[in-house]
């Protein structure tokens, strides 16, 4: 989706410059901001299709920027972090960030994530009659799941977990997000229950945790439903 507008919010001028050049080379229109306030202002002015957001900013945390932005915007956000920022990273995802990249990252990885997030962003909301990913098909109206035309029998909870993940394909969903959506707020800390269901789902879908086709584990953070494109 070349031509899309990307806003880089990072306080490292050298990294911003390199990112900008790299993205512009691939046809994106890029603007940059060096801190949170400038970033939020640029969102209004520049109207980006996507935000690359550093978590450690001089004036405010990237988490706060996410929260502020999510009040009135669905613009996809990919947060940039370094190792050791796990807690902040999860907080940013909980506040509505769509994905994260751990510094240092290669340009190729960044571009793939950008494409996935932009596609999701442009897909729009609204109920979908069916979710298809590879040979997996989820018929939302009939609440049935099949792989290569063969029906897969899921318990109601397994079904809810799968559809929640699939409806946010490509986006990293944190443990608390999934737990809240499927079980309700009271179960938000019950990660091993979630892990059990994910394992059952993988078994029934014939998915391999080490080389996943459908559900990918984001260690320490949550899970991501893979879109076909992200796989390829």
């Amino acid at each position, binding site marked *: 989706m070349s031509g899309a507008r990307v806003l880089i919010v990072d306080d490292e001028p050298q990294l911003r410059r390199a990112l900008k050049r790299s993205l512009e080379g691939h046809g994106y229109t890029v603007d940059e901001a060096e801190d949170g306030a400038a970033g939020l202002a640029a969102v209004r002015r520049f109207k980006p299709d996507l935000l690359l957001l550093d978590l*450690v900013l001089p004036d405010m945390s990237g988490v706060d920027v996410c929260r502020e932005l999510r009040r009135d915007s669905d613009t996809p956000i990919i947060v940039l972090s370094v190792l050791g920022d796990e807690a902040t990273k999860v907080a940013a995802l909980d506040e509505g960030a769509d994905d994260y990249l751990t510094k240092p990252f290669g340009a190729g990885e960044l571009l793939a994530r950008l494409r996935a997030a932009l596609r999701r962003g442009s897909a729009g909301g609204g109920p979908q009659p069916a979710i298809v990913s590879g040979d997996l098909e989820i018929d939302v109206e009939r609440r049935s799941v099949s792989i290569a035309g063969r029906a897969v029998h899921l318990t109601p909870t397994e079904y809810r977990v799968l559809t929640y993940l699939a409806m946010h394909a490509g986006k990293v969903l944190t443990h608390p997000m999934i737990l809240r959506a499927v079980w309700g707020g009271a179960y938000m800390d019950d990660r091993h229950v979630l892990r059990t269901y994910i394992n059952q789902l993988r078994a029934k879908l014939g998915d391999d945790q080490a080389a996943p086709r459908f559900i990918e584990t984001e260690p320490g953070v949550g899970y991501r439903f893979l879109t076909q494109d992200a796989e390829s």
Partner: protein
Amino acid sequence: MPERRYHEIVQQLRARSASRSPLTGVVATVLGTAALTAALASVHERVGLLNEGLLFLLLTLLVSATWGREVGLFAAVLANLALNFFFVPPLYRFTVEAPANVVALGVFLVVSVVGSSLLSSARRAADEARRREAETQVLLGLSRALIGQTEPTAALAALCSEVVDAFAAAGASVLSAGAGGFQVLASAGRASASRAADAQERVMAERAVSLGAITRLGHTSLSGAHRVRVVLPAGQRRVKEMEDGIAFVPLRIADRTVGVLRLDGPIGVSAFREHPDQLLTAFAGEAALGVQRAELSQAASHADALKQAGEMKTALMTSISHDLKTPLAGIKTAVSSLLDTTVRWSPDDVNAFLSTIDSQADRLNRVISDILDLNRIESGVIAPVVRPVDARRLLEEADERTALVTGDRRVIIDSPPELYIEADRSLLLQALVNLIENAAKYSTPGGSIQLGARAAGTMAALTVEDEGPGIPPADLPHVFERFYRAAEQSRRVKGSGLGLAIVKGFVTLSGGTVRVESSPSATRFVIELPLAVRATVSA
């Protein structure tokens, strides 16, 4: 209540108990009776038997009031005999003529015996009250001594010194009974009171612990013969028995014995010597609490240290990952873009990517150097070479080295010529370079940086001053700590957070001290070093 009071009581009771031995009483009684007899003999006719009897009764009562019942009885019998022999007719014979006098002597004996009994028990009661009062004073003194002590071992030391006072002992110490055997937590009295428990003492202390009773090591205690005697089940404790030896009092809390109170003899003449139980119990109770507090605080500080080490490690890892990975992110983005063959990069693009790689590689190098420098400082592998150094030339060189960083800031050097300081030149230069870089980073852009050198007495001060926003007072004490950045600046300025820690390390190694002064408009770092004897020097 003033401290003096209870010492006075102790002294007084000590003096009284010394002067009141029964032998003294018997001698005094004999002398008193003889004197009274002699005095009355000459005036016998005029005074009359009744008055003489009353005077002897008075003597008897005084004796029993002073020396107690036994000596009082002796005085009563002696007075009765003296009265009979010298004053009741027939004189100088123990026979009595008049029946009335027989009755009178009998009555005299009965009255004096009863009176002396009453008086002596009143005296005992008074002494007991006195002793109780003194005990109360001791305990009050103890709680006063303990109340101000927040530090457990200081409290135990105060307790030991109260024990030494109260028992007039040679020394007292509190030993904890931990996994590693008995350890002296606190002591008072003679210097030897703080000695570690030797083999014999450990045996006795262990017995005290297992018996739950006071044990003692006999006269030949400290070195030499194994004349170990375990004394007494709980009921029969007597400190008196440990005259020159060492007593061990178990310190118990609930069912647990936490240690022992070691009391070194000789126990001086003390009012409490004969009745030590109550006081010892009180002391032992306080000491047990003190030992427990010491244990808890030790455990807490150990946990604190572990926690701090853990936090330090986490901070170190976080900081290092940020400092190393941030430049790496720029390099990786630039390199992977250059390697991306799907885009035809213009020469301008290529240049930009390469310059990013170049500058970020430099930055990475600086961070790694910082980490290595600090590691060298902390591991003690740097051997400083201290020689006379020309201050002005040193400042000029530091200025040249930092020209790139200071950029458009005006750097003013203010130093007299021929000012020589004793330092390791390269370490001090590195420290100055770090300080100037620091000033450039934190000060207002365009503001000036002043480098100064000045002699004061036998010392010289090198200063690096900037026109920055200053450092908040709360942060000042911490600026030389690793990874510490003033709160407001932590987000604005990127750096390893190691620079000032390295400055301090280098200056210290070079034999100097460094401190910081800050106001809302300026920050000044001052390095102080000894002046060199200048004559023969070239830097």
